[in-house]
């Protein structure tokens, strides 16, 4: 393992210090070293909080910023933040209108958010949640509540964050964030495993010449291990898992997010996106807006995740709203 580290146990703290030095205009430290807060938040707005384990850059701190998330709780690598960190993030962002906690469906995060909400209740702070469960490979459609969160979390933050920035109430923010989740479906494909710095060796295996369809963000096994495919075949395989799930239909308008898992060259993401776009076009599904890049990674895994969100007029307006963060900055349309 040849990696850029000091003591592997300090990687999260040192990464956060570096992050804050580089993005001082967008994000700032709080009293809790594991909570990062946006520098600018409109007065009186509903607080938007997320959090999760480290190793997914830009997620989660990379989406702290104007028009997105007001604070993120940061955990160890692939490990949920503490309940205390979620609670501190709630306190940091509440301006009296309550807090929307928008996070991914993992048992540790569910547990710590639940405990943090209990702490919040004791001090009279209102917190409501939306849990992203967009990963179609992790459970059948009739057990959606069991599905894990994928890169679709980014659409949840974008939509919920835009509503909060526009002055939406807590219930309105929760409603649109939940709508975004309901409309969003993701699937991953893994080509090589990843290594936790403090462990020093990969903790799962992807054999040479094979790829894992439906792999999770921490290497959770997917639906199928298949021989390595061309970008063309890969796009077909991924869309075959996503499109019937909603189901997406001819004349639908969608937002597409194609994220690398960390080590795949961005050039290759565009090769895959080209195939995805062609196939969606063939089915008469129109891409309204798309995102290609490293938006939600898994350390140095090779592979990609594909996320498709079905749009309506309300979601389009919120998707197009301005935002500014390390992971996603866009100007209004």
């Amino acid at each position, binding site marked *: 393992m040849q990696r850029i580290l000091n003591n592997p146990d300090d990687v999260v703290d040192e990464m956060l210090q570096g992050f804050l030095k580089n993005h001082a205009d967008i994000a700032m430290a709080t009293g809790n070293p594991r909570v990062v807060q946006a520098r600018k938040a409109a007065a009186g707005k509903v607080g938007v909080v997320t959090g999760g384990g480290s190793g997914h850059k830009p997620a989660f701190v990379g989406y702290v910023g104007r028009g997105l998330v007001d604070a993120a709780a940061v*955990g160890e690598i692939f490990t949920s933040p503490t309940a205390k960190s979620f609670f501190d993030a709630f306190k940091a962002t509440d301006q009296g209108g309550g807090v929307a906690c928008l996070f991914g469906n993992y048992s540790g995060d569910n547990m710590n958010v639940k*405990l943090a909400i209990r702490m919040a209740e004791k001090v009279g702070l209102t917190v409501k949640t939306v849990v992203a469960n967009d990963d179609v490979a992790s459970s059948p459609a009739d057990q959606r509540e069991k599905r894990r969160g994928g890169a679709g979390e980014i659409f949840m933050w974008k939509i919920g964050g835009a509503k909060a920035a526009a002055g939406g109430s807590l219930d309105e923010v929760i409603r649109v964030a939940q709508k975004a989740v309901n409309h969003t479906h993701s699937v991953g494909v893994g080509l090589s495993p990843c290594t936790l710095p*403090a462990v020093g060796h990969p903790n799962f295996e992807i054999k040479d010449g094979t790829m894992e369809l439906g792999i999770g963000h921490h290497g959770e096994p997917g639906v199928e291990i298949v021989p390595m495919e061309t970008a063309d075949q890969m796009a077909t395989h991924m869309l075959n898992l996503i499109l019937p799930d909603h189901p997406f239909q001819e004349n639908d308008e969608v937002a597409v997010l194609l994220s690398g898992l960390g080590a795949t060259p961005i050039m290759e993401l565009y090769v895959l996106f080209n195939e995805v776009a062609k196939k969606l076009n063939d089915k008469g599904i129109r891409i309204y807006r798309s995102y290609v890049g490293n938006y939600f990674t898994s350390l140095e895994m090779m592979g990609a995740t594909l996320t498709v969100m079905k749009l309506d007029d309300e979601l389009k307006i919120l998707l197009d709203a301005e935002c500014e963060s390390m992971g996603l900055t866009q100007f209004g349309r």
Partner: protein
Amino acid sequence: MDGFANAAGKSIVMKMIAEIQANKVYLSDIDGLIGDGDHGMNMNKGFTLCKERLGRNALTFTESLAALGDILFNEIGGSMGPIYGMIFIEMAEYAAKETVITAHVFAGMLDAGFNGLGDIVQARVGDKTLIDTFVPARDAFAEATASGLDFVCALQKFKLSSENGMLSTKDLVSRFGRSSRLGERSRGVLDAGAVSCNLIFQAMADEMINLIK
């Protein structure tokens, strides 16, 4: 006196800490087979932090246990931070006012710890989690006490059932937590949480037996 002085029980928590430290790599390796391989490191981090905080302070068993619970709960995160944090905090709180820890008090502590856990986790016996260690151990202890066995004998039963409960997870298919997504592929491997729970229970019971004698 069938029991031990709460004031003398800090050594129980120190023994639990030593046991987790000694098995850091073993726990991570087991976790790596069907989980994400961080269980040993996270547990070691929390328990070691507790050892540093407890230091040479003269603390009771329940004060030490509460301190361990607080650190795990507030500073470790993941699933195991709140799970073990909740268990130890609730166990400590139940017996905080006791000067002597009797078999009856310890049975109550186990119930309180389990109820605290049930508050945040939906897993049941058979789901391949630490509950497969916890419940048989707790039940064996309660049964032994009810049938008139003394504290030390009841702790022996507790140890045996804890070990067997831990071993039972090997043939189970995971239905809770990250490994549950493996389905059949999780069979044949011990659950890391069940293993750490057994290590903790063995250390706890061994030192209690020392103190009672």
